[in-house]
């Protein structure tokens, strides 16, 4: 469709005029422009909702909201065309078959072996071994080898040595969705473990010997403690209500030596609504500080994040400080349980704070344990009530921790944002379907590519320059301050306002420091080489020449150009409601925006997903990073007077 306008939601600068394309996998807007054809690509999988708004004199507005929080406002001249686009997008955003998804057509031009290798990058067997199992207390069980016991669990689970197949099967019959207690994390220092399950089908008075034996087995697998924590991550009221439906929670009287604990985290419907409300706040036009703070509080979002974090902290403390094992469950054991187990693991074990370790963590607690990616993130068209930002919340918990402990994580914010992006993008096969069983049936590994391999290939972009494996922050358990710590939870504007350029610092400290680090390393290597050469020279020349040794010159001048300052930013609208003299003639385009065109050069250091020759996801992203050593730099702005129109005074 031609003559479509793309509006900038934040600023009322002139809209970009261009052509809208719909392909099998993407929506693409290409701006009409002389030299620069700025393109905005959006994957259909990312589309959360499409809204047709009332036709105005200028055309028919269409609002596309994405799961990665991008919001695209288009204005299509003809109502008929707008309607066509609307209907098409609705259909395209709600695929019916898996085969419609992008991952089945995405071609990164790797051969079969490379594809396989990619899938092997994360190996859960190796991970359990790294933890220290199997050992005297824990063994691997293949009781679920054909998914016969629990179809949402993996084929291989770790259980206490004393848990026989009979006990496992019996316990599984007493658990919602047959998700019996299984090992999530083992702490080899003190044998404490984190196990996970779903709620018991206890109703008001039902008992199950095998389930009680299962919990006993878990307790016994930790000789250092004489009791076991059972943590129910639901609010007490919800758990009690479940009893009326024949489910519920463990009765301390029936299970020997357990200490039961509720840590109330709300359910998926509350979370879905919470996110919705928060996004509405983000969509406010020129909100006041009051509007924003009230809106944010009303959404309850940060409160929920804190609840998840607090649960993780409780469990980590139990394991690390008390040496007590914990069994975690919620209702079905695939949402809150996953969140809480992974937060706890992250706090406990520095390995999960490395890039590889984090991938392993997600693979373990989310993918293998049957988190319902398809239902929660809408790979396919389904029940809207199943949609909920569960993993988004976990990812945000990680970000909040990164803000509190800037030296503790090997990866940076961009890593988290890209993972979130790809959970929804369906460009890779890792997060499809609802269980390992379904993925194997669809032969995902033979037909799609692994995100982990892709991220690993570009890992240089995802590193945190402040991370040092020998730093005190990276050792051992992380202990976030518990109270008073309300103020430690910040609004994650990097995620929820990801595509609003004006909101973010133009200069990325992370990227600058990474470049400094790299350049330092290069220079160190060069220095080593020179030193060796010098030593050889000295040896070979014996006493002939007096060679002055070079100074250990860690000079400040690493040859980094400070072109990070060369991007002028533009004033936003600081005041909307003034009449004044007519402002100076508005410019015909944004010079500084021309720097944000997705050319091959500036993509390599910013968003590797958006390589121009293969598949662009979406345009104009966080190109705030620079390659300070001058290579692949964005064209620099020479003068302070870029020719933006003065927007602050309304005509």
């Amino acid at each position, binding site marked *: 469709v031609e003559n479509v306008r793309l509006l900038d939601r934040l600023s009322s600068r002139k809209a970009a005029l261009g052509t809208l394309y719909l392909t099998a996998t993407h929506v693409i807007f290409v701006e009409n422009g002389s030299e620069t054809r700025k393109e905005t690509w959006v994957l259909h999988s990312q589309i959360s909702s499409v809204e047709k708004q009332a036709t105005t004199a200028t055309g028919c507005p269409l609002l596309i909201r994405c799961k990665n929080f991008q919001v695209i406002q288009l204005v299509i001249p003809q109502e008929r065309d707008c309607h066509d686009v609307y209907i098409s997008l609705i259909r395209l955003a709600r695929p019916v078959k898996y085969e419609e998804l992008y991952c089945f057509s995405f071609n990164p031009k790797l051969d079969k072996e490379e594809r396989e290798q990619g899938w092997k990058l994360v190996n859960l067997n190796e991970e359990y071994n790294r933890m220290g199992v199997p050992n005297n207390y824990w063994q691997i069980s293949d009781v679920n080898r054909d998914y016969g016991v629990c179809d949402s669990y993996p084929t291989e689970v770790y259980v206490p040595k004393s848990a026989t197949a009979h006990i496992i099967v019996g316990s599984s019959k007493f658990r919602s969705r047959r998700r019996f207690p299984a090992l999530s994390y083992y702490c080899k220092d003190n044998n404490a473990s984190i196990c996970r399950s779903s709620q018991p089908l206890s109703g008001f008075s039902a008992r199950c010997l095998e389930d009680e034996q299962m919990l006993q087995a878990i307790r016994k697998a930790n000789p250092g403690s004489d009791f076991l924590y059972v943590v129910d991550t639901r609010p007490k009221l919800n758990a009690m209500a479940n009893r009326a439906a024949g489910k519920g929670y463990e009765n301390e009287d029936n299970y020997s030596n357990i200490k039961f604990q509720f840590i109330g985290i709300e359910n998926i419907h509350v979370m879905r609504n919470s996110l919705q409300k928060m996004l509405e706040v983000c969509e406010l036009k020129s909100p006041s500080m009051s509007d924003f703070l009230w809106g944010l509080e009303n959404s309850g979002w940060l409160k929920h994040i804190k609840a998840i974090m607090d649960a993780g902290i409780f469990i980590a403390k139990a394991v690390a400080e008390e040496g007590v094992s914990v069994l975690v469950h919620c209702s079905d054991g695939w949402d809150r349980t996953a969140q809480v187990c992974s937060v706890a693991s992250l706090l406990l074990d520095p390995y999960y704070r490395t890039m590889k370790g984090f991938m392993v963590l997600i693979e373990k607690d989310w993918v293998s344990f049957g988190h319902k990616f398809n239902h929660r993130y809408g790979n396919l068209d389904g029940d809207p009530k199943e949609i909920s930002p569960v993993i988004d919340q976990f990812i945000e918990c990680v970000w909040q921790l990164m803000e509190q402990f800037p030296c503790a994580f090997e990866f940076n914010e961009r890593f988290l944002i890209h993972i979130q992006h790809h959970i929804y993008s369906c460009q890779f096969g890792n997060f499809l379907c609802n269980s390992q069983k379904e993925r194997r049936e669809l032969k995902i590994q033979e037909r799609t590519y692994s995100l982990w391999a892709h991220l690993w290939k570009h890992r240089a972009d995802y590193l945190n320059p402040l991370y040092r494996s020998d730093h005190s922050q990276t050792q051992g358990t992380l202990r976030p301050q518990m109270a*008073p710590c309300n*103020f430690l939870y910040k609004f994650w504007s990097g995620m929820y306002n990801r595509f609003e350029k004006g909101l973010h*610092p133009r200069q990325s400290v992370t990227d600058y420091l990474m470049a400094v680090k790299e350049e330092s390393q290069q220079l160190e290597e060069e220095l080593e080489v020179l030193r060796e050469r010098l030593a050889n020279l000295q040896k070979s020349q014996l006493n002939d020449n007096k060679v002055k040794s070079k100074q250990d010159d860690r000079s400040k001048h690493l040859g980094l150009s400070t072109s990070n300052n060369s991007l*002028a930013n533009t*004033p936003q609208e600081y*005041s909307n409601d003034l009449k004044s003299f007519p402002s100076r003639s508005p410019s015909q385009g944004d010079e500084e925006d021309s720097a944000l065109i997705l050319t091959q050069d500036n993509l390599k250091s910013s968003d590797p997903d958006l390589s121009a020759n293969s598949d662009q996801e979406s345009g104009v992203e966080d190109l705030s990073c620079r390659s300070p050593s001058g290579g692949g730099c964005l064209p620099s702005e020479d003068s*302070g007077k870029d020719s933006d129109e003065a927007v*602050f005074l309304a005509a």
Partner: protein
Amino acid sequence: MLRSSQPLTGPNRKRCREDEMLLGTVLDEGERGFIIDTRSAQAAKQARMMGGGTEPKSAYLQWKRLHRPLERGRLLQESFIKLVEACNDTSINMDRWLSRLESCRWLSHVKAALSTACLAAQCMDREEASVLVHGAEGTDTTLLVTALAQVILDPSCRTLMGFQGLLEREWVEAGHPFHLRCARSAYSHARLKQEAPLFLLFLDCVWQLSRQFPFSLEFSERLLLTLFDNAYASAYGTFLCNNEKERRVRGQGRAQPSWCLCKVKENTHSLWAWLNQPGEKKKYLNPLYSHNALVIWPSVEPQSIQLWQGLFFRWIRSSQYLDEAWAEIQRLAGGS
């Protein structure tokens, strides 16, 4: 950019030839200027009853008046006190924290101050027009706006020396009454009438800029905290008294408080002299600094304005991990 106090128009709409001529000389034929009045239109109008007022349009034809009300005085001090109380309140849970923060209004004041300073900067940089800033007295919100606008506009004000010069010029010599304004701070029950944290508000705004432009200020947060400390209690004479006159006048008569130090320059040491010693100075430098010749335009969206944790939680929670991070940044970028 010019600053002044309010014109004494009064209820009878007096005019003053000299004042009109003075402002007239600033603008060339056909040029326009902006007057940014830091009072609301209503407050400015009411001021007339007390002998003050605004520049009548007919007499200042080339000047366009814009009202950008900024809080000051008792209300600003209350805002500050409430915020400090909220930060200290260990009983608030997450349910109520944001609304409590909102009810203090401090962040709204930061947003308003930044917006107004940006407006002044925009008038100059984008409209290439001269700007006159004034409130009522010209000693509070006026200075906040002019000083902040210069940090935004002028790269030399972002250097360590330049910033000190800015403070000396736009706050100390311009007559911000430090002695009255920075008397007891937020914990005191005294609630003095003349007390108001304008200078802290300015420092907070500068901190916001440093967060949004981490490479563009030569000085670090530590300098801002030190300045905050010294404004209230100092071993140095820089922030003593209320104006240059008081800093020079002998203690007798003139209704000066007898303990107000006189001849500040002779009897005290300068804060700047101490800060600029090589050993001290390096503590206040920003290792990421790199000269940015351009104007820095901050975002004043609520998401972009954050609570200055380094100040408001300074004594409440450990900054160990953030300090370690900062040390790491210095190690990497500090040019060992």
